[in-house]
């Protein structure tokens, strides 16, 4: 299958997502410059981490206006799998593909460290191969990952089972100690109502090889590869 890795001028995890898809998982991967207007027949889209346009305003606030985002919107509306990682998640929030917003971490500092997240939903293209309740060890690296949405929105997300990942301890319990940034309800990642758009703050592409300390992130990529090759997700192209 083929991944499209969207490159905003300040993306800096684009290489990492591309490397994971192409070298670790042996799939096709193509960089798509943000000024382009086609996803070039990709089966899945990754919005990578970084600082899309410097993020001196709100993170991801300008990226939603990049020409490629209209294509991403169309791709998502047609049911194509879209994964927003870290800054990519922030861009999805700004673009309205997922609800809510990011505040600064409650520590008021950038934090880079391994955290534990629990997979709560396995009916998304990026978690289909996970076991329900599986706990993954994946790094975070962000200054603004403190997820916030109004209580009604949170209630709706919970009702619709859109909270895909939650920060937990090793036993899968969402304690305050396990919450690295102050996110409401320990939310680490969400999916859209259609379930094909997934955003998360942790970096699965950094956890694809044991040499780097964890390979727990592989399962997100393996899930979508399986979903696409078995035709479970819509052919959105």
């Amino acid at each position, binding site marked *: 299958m083929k991944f499209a890795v969207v490159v905003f*001028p300040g993306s800096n995890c684009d290489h*990492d997502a591309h490397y994971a898809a192409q070298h670790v998982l042996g799939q096709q991967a193509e960089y798509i410059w943000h000024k382009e207007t086609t996803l070039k027949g990709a089966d899945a889209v990754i919005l990578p981490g970084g600082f899309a346009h410097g993020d001196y305003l709100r993170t991801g606030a300008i990226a939603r206006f990049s020409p490629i985002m209209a294509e991403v919107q169309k791709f998502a509306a047609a049911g194509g799998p879209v994964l927003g990682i870290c800054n990519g998640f922030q861009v999805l929030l700004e673009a309205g593909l997922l609800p809510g917003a990011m505040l600064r971490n409650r520590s008021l500092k950038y934090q880079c460290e391994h955290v534990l997240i629990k997979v709560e939903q396995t009916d998304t293209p990026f978690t289909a191969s996970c076991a329900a309740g599986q706990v993954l060890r994946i790094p975070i690296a962000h200054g603004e990952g403190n997820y916030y949405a109004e209580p009604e929105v949170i209630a709706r997300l919970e009702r619709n089972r859109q909270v895909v990942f939650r920060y937990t301890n090793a036993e899968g319990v969402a304690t305050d100690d396990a919450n690295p940034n102050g996110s409401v309800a320990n939310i680490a990642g969400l999916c859209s109502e259609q379930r094909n758009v997934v955003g998360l703050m942790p970096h699965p592409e950094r956890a694809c090889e044991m040499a780097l300390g964890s390979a727990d992130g592989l399962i997100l990529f393996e899930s979508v590869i399986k979903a696409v090759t078995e035709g479970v997700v819509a052919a959105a192209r």
Partner: protein
Amino acid sequence: MTISDDILQRHGLTREEYQRIVDALKREPTLTELGIFSVMWSEHCSYKSSRVHLKTLPTTGSRVLQGPGENAGAVDIGEGLAAVFKIESHNHPSFIEPYQGAATGVGGIIRDIFTMGARPIALLNSLRFGPLDEPLVRRTFAGVVAGIAGYGNSIGIPTVGGEIAFDESYTGNPLVNVFCLGIAAHDEIIKGVASGVGNAVYYVGAKTGRDGIHGATMASAEFDEKSAEKRPAVQVGDPFMEKLLLEACLEVMKSDALVGIQDMGAAGLTCSTCEMGSRGDAGVDIDVSLVPQRETGMTPYEIMLSESQERMLMVVKRGREAEVERIFEKWDLHAVRVGEVTPDGKLRVRHRGEIVAEIPNRSLTDDAPLYRRPMAEPTYIKEAQQLSFDSLGNPPSERDAFWRLLSSPTVASKRWAYRQYDHMVRTNTLVLPGMGAGVVRVKGTSRALAMSVDCNGRFVYLDPYRGAELAVAEAARNVACAGALPIGATNCLNFGNPERPEIMWQFARAVEGMGAACRALDIPITGGNVSLYNETDGRAVLPTPVLGVVGLIEDARTVVRRAFRSQGDTVMLLGETRDELGGSEYLKVVHGAIRGVPPALDLTREAALHRVLIEGASAGVIRSAHDCAEGGFAITLAECCIGTGLGAQVDVPAVTSAVGSNNFSGITTLFSESASRVVVSVAPSAEAQFSELAARHNVPSRRIGVVRGTRVQVAIDGRSTLDESLADVEQTWNTAIERYLEPARAIA
């Protein structure tokens, strides 16, 4: 025009230097020319006090592709690739404005690396601050760390390691040294040279403002109580702009359309034009009115001296201009043609066509003043080298001393800092920060590079020659512990005011020691930086010649980490512990003293030790390795246990303390900082093979115990001395720095 003493003083020039300017120009300079001379002849740019000494350092070797004199050095790492690296200081700006000072320090060194055609893949830093109980120091420390994080994280280059130490001497003059390493194919390395008469000179990047004017001159003077007034001389960084420049420049370089390129760092447009011209034996003719400007009404003087960040100067091959402009356009940057290369070897500056400066390039660079400043051995040395145990009184128990050292900020975990740095981006980081040398793999090859920056300023203070040798040995030992062969180094020499003979003596002796050690260990120094005038109100920092060593691991799978790996493994100590508490962390923390003679160093023995570590790693015999540094053996052993939660049970022979009373025997055994020692763990089945390897290289090795349980247990000649819970050890070590900065959170 008459140049008054006042004008000269504000430009940091002496009357004699002024006369040299008149001689070089064969006339009086214009004010713009005076400004240009003043920055190029500043200590920061000209190395006028240090060059005669730096020339003695070893800079060549079979792997060296680029030695000193370019934007960065380069060494061969095999498979047609080069490691391009350098370290640079941003001390003065970081004291005046910690966040921006440190951030722009990171930006500057990154530009030095990609200017060479290399993609930067790792950052390290070496930092010094005063004691954390001072509010001003906490503010500086927090600001510097946030600035390094803010810039490095945004641009997406991981900060994979470094060192931080604390001492009173740095209170008013912190040190911020940043190291960057990049990878380039040999044939892609590009230099900062202007040549080819008629080739266009382009300016690209951020617009020029009034920020940073005379930054280089500021960095060449001491601080006093008025230093805060110098804040306008600190620049403001824009990492997003630098990210655009980085990607655009690397793309342009791939096109082969450039003759040369140089970043505008210290002394901005002035330095880049005259250095590029000088290297190419060419002239450069520019019109400053074409330079994109952020403010209105800037004079040629201001434009030439501005140190606005994120700017580059390029010489483009004739006929390729449109191609280059198109690539920058893609990245929303505008490359502007500001002049051309000329045959006359002069820097000619115009303003709307009218010539405002015309100076032979070489008079600004190679022919800048050179001083052999007077030197004198400082009077403090003989006195400070005396160490009388009797005057120290009775020592605390070994246990008490252990816990005090463990929570000393210099020894404790630097997690509070590196957690704020993105240390994993680019997915190459094989050894996380805080665990010895930083190690990154080189994608597309089987190789990895280990990097370490080190210096113990106390040792250098007590004996500059040996202290500098010890800095080299420690940095090289750290990369060897990871299993890497040291192949190159870069240095950052932080000292006080060179106009004081005793400072100049420290400097000269340290450079001699550094050179001797690098020669003995076969590590060429391919470039670096000198930072002098690190003084506030006449008090100098501890002399701090930091060495950054790069090591090569042929097979990334064999990288060795510092933490113990399996219960039951054998713990070995390589090297010998001697009665060497001089300059130790123990004396500093427990007795408040910087005294005695630094540990002895046998460079032949040190080199042999590295061979044991490298061979043992590549043969897969060594399961973990960690060198003994600040805090001595006991702290090293504790650090080996941290991370994997595996305790150790060891028994070491007592070291007899020579100085009269035997009370210090236990203390010396545990906390002496004897050089050339490493704690290694091996599988029990490999013990004999490892001992044989050490014996073959004539390196003393001793089996001292086993990896066992969840306690740190140390006996001396059978007498139980330490028996501590590893969980408590880890908690204390991890949170010592946090406790100063976030007291409420640490208690919670």
